[in-house]
């Protein structure tokens, strides 16, 4: 199994009492809450942490994109990947991902990703997402067109990477007379493509299609759901007449390792609860604008009234397997158990979350890298199957 460190780069200095006057840490929270002096220190601290992951022997480091919020300060994740490209030597660098439907010009992402792939001489992993619903408020992109634009932007980017230009592109949402990418990507036919999702049968069906065989990455989901969606991917692959490899399945989960179970729980509790209740906080209308989900899925969400918004505790997320926390032995056992049971080949650990400070983040990283990671890395992964059959 391959091990990665994922970072969200939250604004950890957020005044946590913001919720007395504002209903979310997203979109409508005034940016007067952001102090550039503190933010500058955080950016550099977080970049240091990801560089440290390279030294600790992680297989990869991951950043992502969110807009206008305190939850994650990477509206332009390419800036982070660019900064990391020259300061790291061994790790893969993954942008998981860019929210394609938001883009007025998807070629910008084809270009940016190809540049990072060149600079790192092929250490780059490309992620494509639709973004969470809040991004559609932030960028005024029409959520009702989200699916269409995702697919069209994806097709354009992959063609830009793989076809010799110039060629014209005439889509419904994007039109170009000349697509002719300079630079072409370093990897052939293009960087591996990962598809992060919180769970969607449509997405899995699309990602698992034999033309693509993209790595499906399940993010922040109860373990039971993780198992369900991973099985769905394998089943769909089987229906297409091939066997999905572990390389096609990944899981992203917050992890905290302490010296003992008790210490781990005590140290992690305030910070994971801030992550859940302060940084993730948003009303349903912000999270799920019209069209972001299919009508059928929306009905399901309306029925399950709880979802995001209600207070969650460390025990809630530990019980559901959404947060792996404990001594090295506990964490190792849990992750080995899930891996054996579910069979994913990529594990993305969120080792900083919410307000977790620098010292505890480093301790968490070191304990994980020294006491947990070697056992998991030793677990075999079937050879890479991420070789899309694109002409």
């Amino acid at each position: 199994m391959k091990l990665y460190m994922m970072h969200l780069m939250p604004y950890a200095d957020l005044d946590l009492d913001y919720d007395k006057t504002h209903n979310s840490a997203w979109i409508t929270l005034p940016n007067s809450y952001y102090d550039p002096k503190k933010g500058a220190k955080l950016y550099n601290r977080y970049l240091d942490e990801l560089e440290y992951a390279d030294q600790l022997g992680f297989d990869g480091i991951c950043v992502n994109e969110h807009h206008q919020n305190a939850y994650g300060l990477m509206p332009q994740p390419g800036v982070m990947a660019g900064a990391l490209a020259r300061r790291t030597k061994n790790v893969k660098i993954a942008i998981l991902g860019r929210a394609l439907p938001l883009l007025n010009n998807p070629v910008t992402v084809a270009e940016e990703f190809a540049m990072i792939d060149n600079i790192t001489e092929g250490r780059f992993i490309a992620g494509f997402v639709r973004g969470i619903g809040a991004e559609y408020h932030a960028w005024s992109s029409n959520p009702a067109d989200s699916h269409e634009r995702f697919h069209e932007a994806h097709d354009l980017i992959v063609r830009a990477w793989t076809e010799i230009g110039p060629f014209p592109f005439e889509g419904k949402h994007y039109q170009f007379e000349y697509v002719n990418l300079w630079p072409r990507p370093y990897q052939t036919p293009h960087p591996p493509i990962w598809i992060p999702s919180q769970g969607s049968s449509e997405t899995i069906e699309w990602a698992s299609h034999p033309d693509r065989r993209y790595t499906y990455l399940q993010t922040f989901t109860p373990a039971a759901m993780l198992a369900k969606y991973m099985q769905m991917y394998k089943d769909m692959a089987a229906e297409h007449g091939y066997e999905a490899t572990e390389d096609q399945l990944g899981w992203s989960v917050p992890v905290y390792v302490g010296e003992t179970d008790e210490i781990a729980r005590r140290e992690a509790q305030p910070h994971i609860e801030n992550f859940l209740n302060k940084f993730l906080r948003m009303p349903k209308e912000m999270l799920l604008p019209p069209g972001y989900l299919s009508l059928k899925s929306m009905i399901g969400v309306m029925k399950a009234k709880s979802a995001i918004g209600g207070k969650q505790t460390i025990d809630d997320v530990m019980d559901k397997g959404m947060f792996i926390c404990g001594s090295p032995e506990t964490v190792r056992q849990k992750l080995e158990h899930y891996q054996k049971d579910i069979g994913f080949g990529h594990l993305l650990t969120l080792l900083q979350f919410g307000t977790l400070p620098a010292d505890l983040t480093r301790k968490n990283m070191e304990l994980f890298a020294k006491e947990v990671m070697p056992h998991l890395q030793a677990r075999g992964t079937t050879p890479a199957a991420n070789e899309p059959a694109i002409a």
Partner: protein
Amino acid sequence: MTGCRIRIMRKGQGQSLLFLHGASGATNWLPFMDMLAQNYDVIVPEHPGFGASETPEWLDNVGDLAHFYLDLIDHLGLASVHLIGTSLGGWIAAELATCSCEKIKSLTLVAPAGISIPGVRKGDMFMWSPEELASKLFHNQDLAQSVPQTATEEAVMLMLKNRLMTAKLGWSPRMHNPHLRKWLHRITVPTLIIWGDDDQLLPPAYGPAYRDLIPSSSLHVIAQCGHLPHVEKAQEFVAKVTQFTKEAA
């Protein structure tokens, strides 16, 4: 019609009156429709993409609906129709009338979307919870409280469908077409613009702006009234519309 089956409610006798509904659809026959039906042949379609009507492949923007309704007017053989549109429906009606007023006898725009005034901020219905939406659509909060919450799965599905199509048509640019204002001068029929003085979705400042852009128009502001004058002040609304359409006839 045009590859799309739609649901139409129709009642009454007299001159034809075509009512184009707003973002929340036209599932039910409402009291103001009944009042108008005493003097008019009231035709209330559900827009393609809304309610029980189909969602056609060709539907991308409000201009598509304007052209669809020009087709519908031909299809129903309406030679001279009083056209009324509210909110999103007012935007459709305004777009339609800039294309052709040939078969339009009069135009009534009720708190129509469709234009934007720099510096006058509209409400963001997509950010409001169902409770906030109900409250902000009305001036009279007793009325807002009495709006039934969608209970059945079918009703929820309809609400979601209407909301989805409203987003499709009006998410960005938010509930307007930047090019519409350039051509509103083409509307040559008598036009009445009605606005509630306490409209929190499309502020009353939009009323004078619309009036100034349409040559033969007048503005009637209804006091103590929110975004839905035809619901909140049905009597005054119907009286004003009846008077106006009679004068225009």
